[in-house]
């Protein structure tokens, strides 16, 4: 399991949930035998639900004090102090064409590592980990205006509605997610 324990107390509950979900997932796959599944961290963003492969996630935490960096594009929210390390915070909403409402107390960060960078993704709440049978993943709906197709692996239909599975390598590999204004 790629998610580390975090010190802030409300993450503990989430981690517990995740852990349960994780074991459930394992039990299920053991029962059903040959069904191949993949684990995704599921989070809310702009009233939609998204998933990223658990392998990219390092930890989940409450939004600490966020310091804005002036003159940066909207998809970089700012920086936070993560136990003495400075961590940039990425907002996927502009890319995904979602409205950018102000962050609330329920906002959480998922620290992810992909495409040779580490960043903290802003979410409007992390739901937990979900095992998704590979066979159920459908290609993303065609002809979605403004939605970058290569940003998603596909989607699955769940009881709570559609869950879009993001392709983090593709997204964070985009040049606009690494800021190098002085070209050093």
């Amino acid at each position, binding site marked *: 399991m790629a998610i580390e324990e975090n010190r802030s107390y409300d993450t503990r509950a989430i981690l517990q949930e995740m852990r349960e979900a994780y074991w459930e997932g394992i039990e299920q796959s053991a029962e059903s035998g040959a069904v191949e599944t993949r684990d995704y961290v599921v989070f809310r963003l702009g009233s939609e639900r998204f998933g990223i492969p658990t392998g990219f996630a390092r930890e989940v935490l409450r939004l600490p*004090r966020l*310091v*804005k*960096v*002036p*003159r*940066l594009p909207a998809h*970089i929210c700012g*920086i*936070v*102090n993560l136990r*003495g*390390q*400075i*961590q*940039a915070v*990425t907002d996927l909403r502009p890319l995904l064409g979602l409205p950018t409402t102000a962050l609330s107390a329920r906002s959480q960060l998922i620290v992810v590592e992909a495409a*040779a*960078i*580490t*960043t903290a993704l802003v979410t409007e709440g992390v739901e937990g980990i979900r095992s998704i049978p590979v066979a159920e993943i459908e290609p993303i709906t065609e002809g979605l205006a403004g939605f970058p197709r290569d940003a998603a692996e596909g989607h699955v239909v769940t009881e709570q509605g559609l869950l879009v599975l993001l392709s983090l390598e593709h997204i964070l590999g985009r040049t606009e*997610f*690494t*800021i*190098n*204004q*002085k*070209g*050093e």
Partner: protein
Amino acid sequence: MSSRKYIDIFAREAEEHLQLLRQGLLALEKEGFSAERVHVLLRSAHTLKGSARMLDLTAIGQVGHAMEDLLKEMENGARALTPAITDLLLAATDILEGLVGQAQTGGEVTFNIDNIVEGLRTGVLADAPAALAIEADKAELTTVRTSVAKLDDLVNLLGEMLISRRMLEERRRQLGGLMAEMEDFVRRLRKAENVKQLRQMQAGFSRLASDLEADIQNLSYLTQEMHHGAMELRMLPFSTITEDLARMVRNLAREQGKEINLTISGGNVELDRLLLEALKPMLLHMLRNSVDHGIETPEERQRTGKTAVGRIDLVARYEAGFVRLRLSDDGRGIDPVRIREVAVRKSLLSVEEAACLSDEEAVYLILRPGFSTREFITDVSGRGVGMDVVKTNIDRVKGNLVIHSTPGVGCEMQLQLPLTLAVITGMLIECEREVFALPLHYLSEILRLSEGDIHSEGGREVVRVHGATLPLVSLGDILGLGTCGGVGTGGGKITALVLTFREQRVACLVGRIRGVQELVVKGMGKQLKSVEYFSGVTILGDGSPALILSVPDLFGASLVGRGTQLRQEFAERKAGEKKGRILVVDDSITTRTMEKNILETQGYTVTIAISGEDALLKVAAAAYDLVVSDVEMPGITGFELTAKLRQMEGTRDIPVIIVSSLALDEHRRKGLEVGAQAYIVKGSFDQGTLLETVQTLIG
């Protein structure tokens, strides 16, 4: 027996001898032949040979042996010291170094050993080993003495400790706050027994607080000592990198048929290892420029009445928290006319822009990317990369470069560098509620400006400081945050910092100054490789990050920005001032909004306070011409507020109008007793009465 351990020991020993050989050879050339000098070299070559043979490092043994033979011939006068011989011996030293490196880490050797051995025997090197890179021994900076990586970790951890210490201090302050609250509470207790018990607890708290204070002091002292200690471990003397520089200058001068006497002093000045690494390429480029563009050929020098031998001096010295490097030559200097021409030709700026630059400013054009004055590309400099590398490196290490040039007489470049990169002294400033840190060495003065200090020149606002005129820019504008530090409605002056960068100065408006602190510098992570206007991040006492401003970037922005509009803001404030500034105090939002609107439509400037306490804070922060207050409010009443205002210096003469629903005569009397100028009953309250009263009092 050539086990790892022995090879490592040998490598360390060899390093010393190779250094002795190089220094000795250069000294020999500079100060002339003497048998003793040669003998010292001989001993080094001999030792190297002997040790190498013990470890079966045949090639090193061979070269060492041939070198020893040649040196022996020189010692007993059989062979004269010529520049060619010196070259040969230096080349052999390089090869030995390569071989030692190979023995230690493995890898290929790309030159022919027999060739150099033959060369040493005959005194003529058949085939010069292709540029055995001057920068070859970079490894030296990262592998000396102890594991540098571990040391860096240690320094980082200590940096974290400094931060924890500051957080602890913050907690101490918070504890103090709670104790003050408790004290307030005790005063309000009525039962003697409770008071007694709480007093006992308070005594306990205060003992705890003072113990904590002492512990923090102690910890402070220890962490500081440790931090300094660890920092010192990272320091290396300047001489670590100068040896290569001397080599490079010598070779280059010989190639170009120039005669140059390079003196380096301050080799014992210690600098952060990271800084030295950044410094080396800078100095290489600057020296290359001096040799290539600065120093003339001996003929040319003699024609202009100079000595045939050119002079380059490199001096390092400590200066209050900084290191200053001065590189000066007595060459032809930088010709500002020519620099302008080239810059225009290379489209770095327009003819008009070039004409606007003073000679002093024009000189700095050489730092622009793509600038190079050599007509053809040489191996040395003239590739259009070079001085802009210097600039990039300087900005990276938060240094400052000053160039003085007198055409025909020489050129002097001064580099001001911090001692270390990991900790800077910075000033914390606030701008639109965000905190930023400014490296202190860019700051030359703090100005408190009032309207009369600000002038307009060519549509841009400027300030006069000690007889000089400086452009005025606003940090908030540059960062797109809004008008932080603007005129506002308060009566006070505005704060501007005078920043200095490469002899240019600018006055930068900021909000509030929070103070000066030692700051641990951190990078912004892999995702934010470089961000304009900022050079790094630090972590404040409360654990929140604060961005460190890049002054060079601010200067860049100040050249293109639209400047400030303070005069207009002042004028607007004045227009408001004519009608007077009024503080409205009322806990009811309806009443205060109504009063505010009534007064504002008549052109008064109105500020709101929601309680008596709030009002006291507001009058302390800014000046008002009139106070309009309610009586019954949570906390202190309007009567108490008025009484307090009358007692305080500075507010004694501010007229107070009390607006209240208390209609009894005794209330009116009370109002006048405490010092209010007027008493309006809310029942009879209408716009007219209030406005009339206000007008009577302040016009």
